[in-house]
């Protein structure tokens, strides 16, 4: 159960009031598990969190990926570049 840093951006950072958290996560987790752990920390914003995607080490994840204390997790709200 590694302790992993989760980065927040844009409206997520504004609404959660911080730009990162350290969360204890399973050694293998998929996006749903990561989002659930973030929601457990910030229950008032679970609706926003549920609309986000998850990136691990700069890559969107679909299925489960191994996590270590060195993993960089990011909560990705709907993007709006261009």
């Amino acid at each position, binding site marked *: 159960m590694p302790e992993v840093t989760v980065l927040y*951006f*844009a409206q997520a950072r504004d609404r959660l009031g911080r730009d990162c958290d350290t969360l204890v996560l399973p050694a293998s987790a998929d996006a749903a598990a990561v989002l659930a752990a973030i929601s457990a920390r910030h229950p008032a914003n679970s609706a926003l969190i549920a609309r986000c995607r998850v990136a691990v080490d700069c890559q969107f994840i679909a299925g489960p990926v191994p996590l270590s204390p060195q993993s960089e997790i990011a909560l990705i709200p709907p993007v*709006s570049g*261009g």
Partner: protein
Amino acid sequence: MSRHVHRIIDGPLPTALLTPAALTAPEHGAIASFIGVVRNHHNGRGVTHLVYDCYRPMAEKLLADLIAEAMRFDADLIAHVHHGIGHMIPGQPSVAIHVATAHRVAAFDACRHLIERIKEDLPVWKQEFYDDGTSLWLKGS
């Protein structure tokens, strides 16, 4: 060594990045470009300025991935892609995509693909500030 160029830039794009002049080459008969410019209106509201947030290491990596994807249209294409972040005002250019290929159809298709995929996946977020003093993080377009 890749001849592609892709980068996240602080602030609006400098004028030099708007021209595809660097991509003119004798083997490439066609260059398609797309420039995104900050608009002064959105959903009927006046926009005074905006701020782009960015998850920079992922955005830099994803631009490379998207260019690799676009090569399905022409394995020999050359792409230059830049996205500006931070504070911008209407009229300033935020994104520039240039694609050179031998023939025009692949250039148009690859250029269009790049901007559509950027808008789907690039971890860049736009906070618009309106002339009524409010602001909003956009949810994609």
